């Protein structure tokens, strides 16, 4: 594999999110707060959700981690805003399937993470934010 093959992983849109993350920060006022880390590598994320009438009105995150975990968090918060909880969970399921190499399609930037499925060691980086979302919903 030459470095060119890495372009499958590090798509420009991913690096854009890494460099200029969306929804990075904290929510003022009442919010559902979930901390999640990846014990094998030390990546950590704090996800905050504001849910009203079953709809995600706002989503923000803070954290520290690699380009894949942080860009994934940025994309996810962007995608779930305005969605119902069940829609968000459905997306989470689709995302997990995509990481397993299944044919899933996202209409937004998230699609760029499809290449991660070819790098098994990095799948957990991409799913960290989604795991936090699932944990938040369960609580």
């Amino acid at each position, binding site marked *: 594999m030459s470095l060119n093959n890495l372009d499958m992983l590090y798509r420009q849109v991913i690096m854009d999110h890494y460099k200029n993350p969306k929804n990075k920060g904290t929510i003022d006022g009442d919010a559902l707060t979930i901390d999640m880390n990846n014990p094998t590598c030390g990546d950590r994320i704090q996800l905050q959700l504001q849910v009203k009438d079953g709809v995600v009105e706002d989503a923000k995150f803070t954290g*520290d981690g690699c380009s*894949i975990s942080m860009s994934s968090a940025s994309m996810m918060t962007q995608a779930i805003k305005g969605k119902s909880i069940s829609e968000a969970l459905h997306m989470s399921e689709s995302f997990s399937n995509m990481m397993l190499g299944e044919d899933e399609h996202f209409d937004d930037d998230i699609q760029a993470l499809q290449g991660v499925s070819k790098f098994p060691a990095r799948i957990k*980086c991409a799913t960290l934010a989604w795991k936090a979302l699932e944990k938040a919903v369960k609580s």
Partner: protein
Amino acid sequence: MDVAAIRQLFPALHQEVNGNPLVYLDSSATSQKPQQVIDAVKNYYEHDNSNVHRGVHTLGNRATEAYEGAREKVRRFIHAKSAAEIIFTRGTTTSINTVAYSYARANLQAGDEIVITPMEHHSNLIPWQQAAKATGAELKYIPLQDDGTISLADAKATITENTKIVAVTHVSNVLGTINPVKEITKFAHEQGAVMLVDGAQGAPHMKVDVQEIDCDFYAFSGHKMLGPTGIGVLYGKRDLLENMEPVEFGGEMIDFVNLYDSTWKELPWKFEGGTPIIAGAIGLGAAIDFLNDIGMDEVHQYEEKLVHYAIDKLQTVEGITIYGPKERAGLVTFNLEDVHPHDAATVLDAEGIAVRAGHHCAQPLMKELGVNATARASFYLYNTLEDVDKLTEGLLKTKEYFGNVFK
């Protein structure tokens, strides 16, 4: 030391990874195995496979001789007084837990202290956290200095008359720091405490003389020193081990069993409940033979040369931060500016270079260093200066790659 010839003896080193020749720089996680070790395990299963210490039959005798022969090899390797002081375990973690369960819980109470350092691997940290919680003892840390070492003055000041156990790593798996375990043992003994040395990164890379260190316990793993996974060693001074209760009860470790009470075998078998790790011990014995043929002082000097070369070379990479002291064992932990270590490790892997990225099972130390993760290149006797050159080139490419994707 003829490294080219040594490399020939390690089959796993001769392969391509992602289209490039493998450069294996993760020996602190686990070492590669020479053919001799693989053959010893294979030979046992093909010819001598049998349970130990019970068969009257020929294979049982062969297996017992090989297993106990390995114990004697370990005894000589670390210069223990008696083979009764060599307990085979699953690895360093099990060795330390054995002391934390058997010795610590029986001998500690509220008001007592356990002293460790912030550079401990989780395996020499969490067993003591748990022992402290279970007994009411206090866990104390010898502070870490800015250069990644601990000072003798701090060690002396931290260990008090209330200290009952001191547990310190021989070599830091992150910083490469070689700790003055002999001097710290002296401080421990002056205060009536016992000293445990975590030798997971020590025994594979340098000559170890437990009688010279005078430590009470020394723990290490086979798989980091060319041996198989699943085998490790707990060395303990005989008089201490004699007075300790076993942690696991069952077959192999008993003397007499009555309906309501039993007695234990003598050392070291009272600590080896169940069918032991026979093939693993035999493989470890073969690994020790291999290391002895080269000589541990040779191994240590060669790794020193490698690590000095690596530090000089890596420092030429702009934006690199190297953690730890100048004088160190054969590993370099670093970070590249603006590139997360996982991303660096992925790019290096694409070049066939295997390094570790993450917290290296030392989260409190990462906090002290002010980072969440680092990358680590660790060396062993089969690595070459050329491997270091490839790592350096790989890091330059990593910077270039991320420089480009960021544009």
